[in-house]
Structure formats: structure tokens, C-alpha cells
């Protein structure tokens, strides 16, 4: 079993570098990290502002996701955080990092961690476009 070192759903700025340091370990030969950032465009439309809303269970669900990834792979350490509330363009909404002995496992586990988080985490994205219209993503 790897160490699940950080699992959080928070309203403050996420730091991809910090989460990488959290998983660092002398036993780990590979660290792969992901940062999912707010883009200035979505489907060709200019995004003016964006906010995430989270369900009260979000952090508990994220912990279940982390445990499932830890069970699937041979990890040294794992960390994952999702931000909610308003997020500026270019800032991170989701950061994740895994440390493993070998690199193949690190890439696979980090990708799976991000995919499973996006599938299961009860959070919602609200985008306001430059033309003043808005949408709840996946609800259009």
C-alpha cells in the first residue's frame, strides 16, 4: 500500500509544485504530476470567469477515489486536491501527483487518478463567457 498523503477539496489556490513535493520519497524513482487548469477558451468560446461548486460529500468521495487508485497500482505515495469556488484563468482546478518506483506505473496511475476523479467527484463547473452567456458544463 502506498501512502495517501493529501486528499482535499478546498477554496484556496492549488499549488502543483507543493503537491509534487508532498509525494517525494527516496524510494520513488518517478513522480508524475497533473495540473488541470482553467483555460481562456472552451469549445471555441472565450471564457470570462469560472467557478466550481462542490457537494458536501466531495472530499469523502475523493478519498474513496484515492484508495481505489492505491489498490490498483504499486504506489509509494499519492496526493490529490480539487479546488471549488471562483478560479481565475490559468489557475489550477485539480492537481494530482503520484510517486512510484518505476515510471510506467507513475504515468498510468496518475492518469487513472485524474480520470476517476473527473468521473466520480461530485463537483460542478459554471462558466461565464465573454459574451455574457453562461453554462453549467455537461448540463447544456
Amino acid at each position: 500500500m502506498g501512502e495517501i498523503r493529501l486528499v482535499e477539496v478546498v477554496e484556496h489556490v492549488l499549488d502543483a509544485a507543493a503537491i509534487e513535493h508532498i509525494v517525494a520519497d527516496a524510494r520513488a524513482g518517478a513522480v508524475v504530476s497533473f495540473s488541470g487548469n482553467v483555460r481562456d477558451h472552451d469549445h471555441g468560446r472565450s471564457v470570462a470567469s469560472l467557478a466550481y461548486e462542490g457537494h458536501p460529500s466531495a472530499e469523502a468521495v475523493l478519498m474513496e477515489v484515492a484508495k481505489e487508485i492505491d489498490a490498483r497500482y504499486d504506489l509509494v505515495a499519492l496526493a490529490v486536491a480539487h479546488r471549488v469556488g471562483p478560479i481565475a484563468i490559468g489557475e489550477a482546478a485539480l492537481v494530482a501527483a503520484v510517486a512510484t518506483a518505476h515510471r510506467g506505473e507513475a504515468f498510468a496511475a496518475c492518469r487513472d487518478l485524474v480520470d476517476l476523479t473527473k468521473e466520480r467527484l461530485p463537483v460542478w463547473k459554471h462558466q461565464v463567457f465573454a459574451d455574457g452567456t453562461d453554462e453549467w458544463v455537461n448540463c447544456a
Partner: protein
Amino acid sequence: MTVEVHLFAAARAAVGSSVVMAQPGSLARILDGLETDHPAFAAVRPRCSYLVDEVSVHAEGIDVPAGSRVDVLPPFAGG
């Protein structure tokens, strides 16, 4: 005792509030009531999933007893 219906994201936007009270009964009847009072909810409803007292529910036929809490969850969009 009534049922507390908590609405999130697009469902809250359609209904116009975060929490509404409903009479106990089948989940379908509660959702029908929401749709009658807030027609905009009809567009979101087919894509929602539900929690009844924190447990995922996959059929609208389920009974929601008095004192329960229902969470109406539009499709997630994390990351």
C-alpha cells in the same frame, strides 16, 4: 414531517433555490412536483442522479419517507 430536497448547480439554477420542502412519497412524485412548480427543471431532470439520505438512488420509483433528505445532482464536471 416533510422531505428536504437539496438542489445543486444547474438543478439549483433551474429551481431557483438550494432547498425546497416536499411531501413524502415516491422520488418520481417529488420530482414531478418540482417540475410542475419550476418548469425549467424539466430540462435538467433527465441528466440528474439522486441521493436519498446519502445513498445513491438509481430508480425514481423508490419511496422517500418523511424526514428524509434528497440530493439532486446534475452530471459532475470536475477537473
